C-alpha cells in the first residue's frame, strides 16, 4: 500500500520535480497511451484476443470529438458523443470480428481498422483527409483551465487513475475471471455454463471504451487529429506497448506505453533511428521474454537475487540437506 501511495504522490507532484514543460508533456503522453494500452490489454491480455484495429476506435473518438466541438456543441457533448460513437463502433467491430477466432479475428480487425483509416483519409468532406481536423482550446472542467501543460497533465492523471482503478476492479471481479477463463479454455467454459461469445463481446466493448477515452485525451493534448492516428501503424504500436510490457499485469501496459513514448520522444534526440531500436526491442522481448518486460524483469530479478543468496552456501551440499530450489 505504501508503494502505491508513494507512486501517487510522485505522479501528482511530477510537474514540480520534473521542471521542464517538455517533460511534463512527455508524462502526459505516457498517461494517454497508458490508458490506451490498459484498455487494449483487456482484450489482448485478459480475453486473449489479439487485435490490430484498435486505433480505429481511438481515432473514431478523436474525430467524433473534434467534429462535435467544431460544430459548436461544447466539450461535454463532445466527450459524450465521442464515447457513444466509440461504443457503437466497438459493438459493430466486435460482432464482425468474433465471427473468426485466432488469426481470423486478427485479420478482421485489420480490415476494420483499415476501413476506418480509409474513411478518415478519403472522406475529405467530413474528415478533411490528410490535413486532419483541428480544434481550438481545451475544456475547462469546473472552471479549471487545461490550457497549460501542467493543467492538462493533472486532468490526464485523474482520467488515468480512474481508468486504472476501473480496470483493476474489472480484473479482480467475477466477470474478469470469466474473461480470463475464455482465454484459456473456451470450450470448457462453454460446457461450464458461460456464454463465451457474450463475454468476449462485452470485453471488447469495455476495451473499446478506454480506447475512446484515450482518443479524446489525445485530441485535447494535440488539439488536432489526422488519419495517422488511425493507421495500421498506430494499432501496431499500441499492440507493441501491451506485448512489450506484459499482458498479465496492470503495470505491464503502463510500462510498455512509457517505453514506446520515451523511445519516440526522448530517445530520438539521442538515438537517430528510434523506430529501429523499438522494433529490435520488440523482437528481443518476443523472443527472449515472451511474457513481457514486466514479468520478464521480475523473473530476471528473482533469478539474480536467488543466485546471490545461494552462493555463500557450502560448495558441496550435504545429501538431503537442501530440498528446495
Amino acid at each position, binding site marked *: 500500500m505504501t508503494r502505491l501511495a508513494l507512486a501517487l504522490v510522485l505522479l501528482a507532484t511530477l510537474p514540480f520535480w520534473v521542471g521542464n514543460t517538455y517533460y511534463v508533456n512527455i508524462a502526459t503522453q505516457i498517461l494517454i497511451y497508458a490508458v490506451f494500452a490498459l484498455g487494449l490489454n483487456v482484450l489482448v491480455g485478459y480475453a486473449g484476443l489479439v487485435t490490430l484495429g484498435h486505433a480505429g476506435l481511438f481515432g473514431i473518438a478523436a474525430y467524433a470529438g473534434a467534429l462535435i466541438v467544431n460544430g459548436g456543441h461544447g466539450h461535454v457533448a463532445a466527450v459524450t458523443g465521442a464515447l457513444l460513437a466509440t461504443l457503437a463502433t466497438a459493438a459493430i467491430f466486435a460482432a464482425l470480428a468474433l465471427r473468426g477466432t485466432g488469426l481470423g479475428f486478427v485479420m478482421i480487425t485489420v480490415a476494420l481498422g483499415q476501413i476506418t483509416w480509409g474513411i478518415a483519409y478519403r472522406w475529405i468532406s467530413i474528415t478533411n483527409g490528410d490535413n486532419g481536423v483541428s480544434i481550438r482550446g481545451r475544456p475547462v472542467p469546473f472552471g479549471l483551465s487545461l490550457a497549460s501543460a501542467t493543467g492538462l497533465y493533472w486532468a490526464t492523471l485523474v482520467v488515468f487513475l480512474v481508468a486504472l482503478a476501473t480496470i483493476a*476492479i*474489472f480484473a*479482480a*471481479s*467475477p*466477470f*474478469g*475471471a*470469466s474473461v*480470463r*477463463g475464455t482465454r*484459456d*479454455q473456451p*470450450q*470448457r*467454459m*462453454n*460446457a*461450464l*455454463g*458461460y*456464454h*463465451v461469445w457474450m463475454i468476449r463481446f462485452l470485453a471488447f466493448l*469495455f476495451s473499446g471504451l478506454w480506447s475512446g477515452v484515450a482518443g479524446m485525451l489525445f485530441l485535447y493534448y494535440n488539439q488536432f487529429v489526422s488519419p495517422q492516428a488511425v493507421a495500421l501503424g498506430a494499432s501496431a504500436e499500441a499492440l507493441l506497448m501491451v506485448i512489450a510490457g506484459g499482458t*498479465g499485469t496492470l503495470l505491464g501496459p503502463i510500462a510498455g506505453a512509457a517505453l514506446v513514448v520515451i523511445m519516440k520522444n526522448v530517445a530520438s534526440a539521442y538515438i537517430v533511428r528510434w523506430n529501429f531500436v523499438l522494433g529490435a526491442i520488440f523482437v528481443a522481448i518476443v523472443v527472449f521474454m515472451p511474457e513481457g518486460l514486466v514479468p520478464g524483469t521480475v523473473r530476471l530479478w528473482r533469478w539474480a537475487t536467488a543466485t546471490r543468496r545461494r552462493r555463500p552456501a557450502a560448495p558441496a551440499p550435504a545429501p538431503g540437506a537442501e530440498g528446495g530450489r
Partner: protein
Amino acid sequence: MTVLEVRGLHKSFGGLCVTADVSLAVAAGERRLIIGPNGAGKTTLFNLITGELRPDAGAITLFGDDITRVPSRRRAHLGLARTYQIITLFPRETLLQNVTFSLLGLSRLRWNPLARLAGQTTLLAAARAALARVGLEHLADRPLTETSYGERRRVEIAMALAQNPRVLLLDEPFAGLSIEERRDVHQLLVGIPRDVTIVMIEHDMDTALGFAERITVLHFGEVIVEGNRAEVVAHPRTREIYLGE
C-alpha cells in the same frame, strides 16, 4: 424413470460416420458404463450429449425435456456436468481458482464486474469443500502447473462435482492413474449419492466393471451390446470386438 435418453443419434465428419443411430436410456441413479475400442465414438457421444457437437440427426432428452436444440452453455444449468478425457484445466490458475470457475459458471455472479471475486467467501468455501471431497484441500492454493497428473485428474472430478450435477458424465476418469490413485478415485465415485446419475467412459475394465450396473458397448459408432455385467461379458460380440475373433 429415465433421466437421460438418446434416440437415433447420428454424426458424421465428411465421409466418416462417427456416431451411427445410437440410442440409449439411462435411469435415475444408475451407474452406466460405456466401453468400446479406440475410435468407437465414445467421447463423440459425450460431446453430442453436452452439446459441444451438434448431431446430424436424432434427439437428446434430459429429465424428459428435449435438449437437442438447447445450446451447450445452457445444459450445465440443467444439471449436466462432465469431465474430459484430455485434461482441460486452467493452467494459469490455482486449484481453488479452477474449481471456482466451475461454481461461478452456474451463478449469476459470473456477470458481475464490480464485486471482488476474492471476497466471495461463500463461493470460495464451496470450492474448498469440493476440493476436500476429492482429497485435495491441502493443495487448494497450489498453481495447477505444480500438481501431478493424478492430482489434476481429481481436480477434473472436483470441478464436475462442484456443479452439483444431476447427471455426471465421466470421460476416462482413471486414465493414466497409478493403482493407488485408481483406488482413491474409485472410492470417491462409489461415495457419490444416488441422486446423481453417472455415465462413465472407461478403458480400465477391472475398475470400471466393478463400478457399473449397466454397460453399453460401442463399436464404430454403433451400439453393439447392452446389458448388465454378466450379460456383456458373456456376449459373443463383445469377445469378437475385443479379441478380434
